[in-house]
């Protein structure tokens, strides 16, 4: 009973602390925090906003799963950012070039995205197992190489392709549009069965289903398969795992590849929405995903809640900008504080639990001696 209470108390405490600190920040700079929160709440109650939140939570969740596959093995894949951008770029490029029947075409886009993401992350894994290069550093470097090298190269090529008179605006640049046969359909129709009509220009991304499937797959893989057991045990104690016959190098390679393959899906949410890749594709989802994975403690369900929370905060910045009740930057601050507060709260809860257990054991022993 007490155990359940400490488990729930941690996230609740973290949330309360976040609200207190951000209220103080808002109040200190002359905004009324309650107005801001009620604006955010009213905004989120609207159906359109909820669609936005789901559409933002989808890539965040995928990004979190990608990061957490590495975390479970103590591999810090900071490079999700670069992996998803490069994967989305190549997948959109390939998808725009080929024309195939619908299911096959979509499958090609998915396979290309996952392979490219997997290879880009696997490169860091390969450097780690063959040359002993720290994964944190190599994935950071690969991020820079993907964004300021690979993407810049394509942007140059697109600029050269522009016709006379077209502006260099990012909206004119990008890959060749993918035919409709290669675009994953939206699932607005399914959602409308339960709700009112959703505005046409605001469809629910079909990637939501993919994200749910990835979440289920992640749970099954980690908790119901030998591979998952090996992966978790390598993360908890690599020496013991090796003694138990788990090949550490192969595990690192597979984990990095899987992590990158899931990362490859992140960018597809936007690619399917606009049928192409453009240079001003939403960035920062990789780092956001790391935060979501940490907040959700690498659990498939926890990360889903965390992704929705972060998506809600992201989307709320728009309404704050509109109503001007508070500076919209407060939502990012809240994301950072909630993350820090949550990990501190989890640690405190853990210490309380350990102390309680020690006390219970001591009492049980004392009773045993007395009897």
């Amino acid at each position, binding site marked *: 009973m007490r155990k359940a209470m400490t488990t729930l108390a941690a996230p609740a405490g973290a949330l309360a602390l976040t609200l207190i600190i951000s209220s103080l920040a808002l109040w200190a700079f002359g905004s009324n925090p309650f107005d801001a929160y009620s604006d955010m709440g009213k905004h989120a109650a609207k159906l359109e906003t909820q669609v936005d939140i789901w559409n933002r939570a989808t890539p965040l969740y995928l990004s979190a799963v990608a990061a957490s596959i590495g975390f479970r093995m103590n591999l810090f894949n900071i490079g999700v950012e670069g992996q998803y951008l490069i994967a989305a770029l190549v997948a959109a490029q390939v998808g725009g070039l080929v024309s195939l029947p619908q299911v096959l075409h979509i499958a090609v886009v998915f396979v290309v995205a996952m392979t490219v993401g997997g290879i880009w992350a696997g490169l860091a894994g390969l450097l780690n197992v063959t*040359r002993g290069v720290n994964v944190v550093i190599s994935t950071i470097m690969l991020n820079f190489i993907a964004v300021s090298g690979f993407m810049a190269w394509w942007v140059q090529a697109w600029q050269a392709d522009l016709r006379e008179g077209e502006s260099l605006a990012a909206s004119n640049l990008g890959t060749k549009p993918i035919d409709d046969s290669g675009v994953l359909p939206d699932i607005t129709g399914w959602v409308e069965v339960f709700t009112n009509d959703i505005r046409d220009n605001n469809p629910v991304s079909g990637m939501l289903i993919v994200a749910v499937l990835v979440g289920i797959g992640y749970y099954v893989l980690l908790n119901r398969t030998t591979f998952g057991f090996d992966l978790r045990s390598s993360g908890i104690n690599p020496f013991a795992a090796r003694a138990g016959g788990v090949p550490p190098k192969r595990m690192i390679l597979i984990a990095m590849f899987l992590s990158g393959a899931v990362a490859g899906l992140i960018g597809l949410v936007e690619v399917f929405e606009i049928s192409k890749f453009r240079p001003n594709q939403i960035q920062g989802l990789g780092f956001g995903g790391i935060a979501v994975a940490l907040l959700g403690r690498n659990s498939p369900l926890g990360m889903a809640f965390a992704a929705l929370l972060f998506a809600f905060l992201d989307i709320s910045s728009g309404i704050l900008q509109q109503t001007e009740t508070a500076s919209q*930057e407060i939502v990012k601050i809240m*994301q950072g504080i909630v993350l820090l507060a949550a990990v501190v709260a989890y640690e405190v809860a853990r210490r309380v639990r350990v102390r309680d257990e020690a006390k219970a054991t001591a009492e049980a022993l004392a009773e045993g001696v007395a009897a």
Partner: protein
Amino acid sequence: MTLPGSLTDQYNQGTKAIAQRLYGNDAGPQSTRASNTSGMPTWLRWMLFALAGMLLLTIVQSIGDTEKLTSAPISREMLRWALPVLLAGLGGLFADRCGVVNIGLEGMMILGMWFGAWGALEYGPWIGMLIGIAGGAAGGLLHAIATVTFSVDQVISGVAINILAPAGTRFLSQEVWGSPTQSPRVDGIGDWDVPVLAGGTIFGWESPDVLLTIAQKEWWYISDVADFSRGLMRGTSLLALIAVALVPFCAWLLWRTRFGLRLRMAGERPQAGESQGVNIYLYKYVGVVISGALAGLGGVVISSPELSGQFLEGNSGGRGFIGLAAVIFGNWRPLGILLGALLYGYVFGLDLKDLDGTASHALLLLNGIVLTGVAGWAIAQRRIADGTLAGLLAVGAFIWWLSSDTVPGWWSNILPYVVVLLVLVFFAQRLREPAALGQTYRRGES
């Protein structure tokens, strides 16, 4: 988490044996100074390295038909762009040496950028610098509270700081300057010309500009060295002097004082320190706060006229992360970090000044020569796989150099990062991180 009787111990002994084979007997975990076999003072050795590097650059410049590689503007750019990386790297050094991973350097740097600019606008550049340092140190303190007191995973706390800092500074900019992304222009703490060598003035006397005279003689190599050195000595920002002076200071502090010994103890074997009555928590706190302060100073440099002259969102540009790479590149030693930062600054600065692409093209030749050297070295050490890999890359670089006149812009963009990766690929096994880096330490638990 150790098992009784343990596999971990066996593993550690194994790695120790390997380390001894690699470094020789004097470089076990106790010794963190480079094994100095030649008996030459370290500074002299580094001086010779620098001169040899200049010789290589001059040769490549002569073959490669460009004049930029050794020119004063390039060395000036090198120093400017190296500064933030150097300071972030030194910050990373202090954190790592006391056993705390600091991914949050980037965030602490952003805090330094904002508070440095704000302080300079409110109270003038000198106080502004101190306020910027304090801003970074506050980020470090937050990291220390989370990781040392609350045992939060060090990477998690760092990531949180990297989210908080840009959001917080955006918020503050909006409230203070009415624009979320930038501040008004700020003043710097001033420049300095080295007297006699680069024509600085002493008490109103305008000294001769010796290096300029030599540089204008167009003596092969000698004039190149003079010109390159002059770029470092003329119009040098006082911030640059402070930053460069911090390198020997940090080395002295960490390796020649009792404070430094204890701080490193916290990163190598905290339980051993504890048994001698050292307050490990305190040293970890101090190390991480210094780390934040140095990263904050790096941020001050970015906002100062030396680089941007204002707070501008995104201008940290991931240099905190590159500082982190410089720490590893430099094998957790101040001089190595300086070298890494200068290398980054050189490649980055050269790209900015190289509008026609000839210098970057000549750099391909340099890459080829250096890789050939690496290949020879690896084969001499009987590391055939390394040698082959380096050889293949060298051949690739030569072929590219011969078959092209310029290199595309994206190649110069990524060159600094490729260099870091290559260095790690060939030398990662010779690096040794502090033994307890990243581990959670609780007093009384082992």
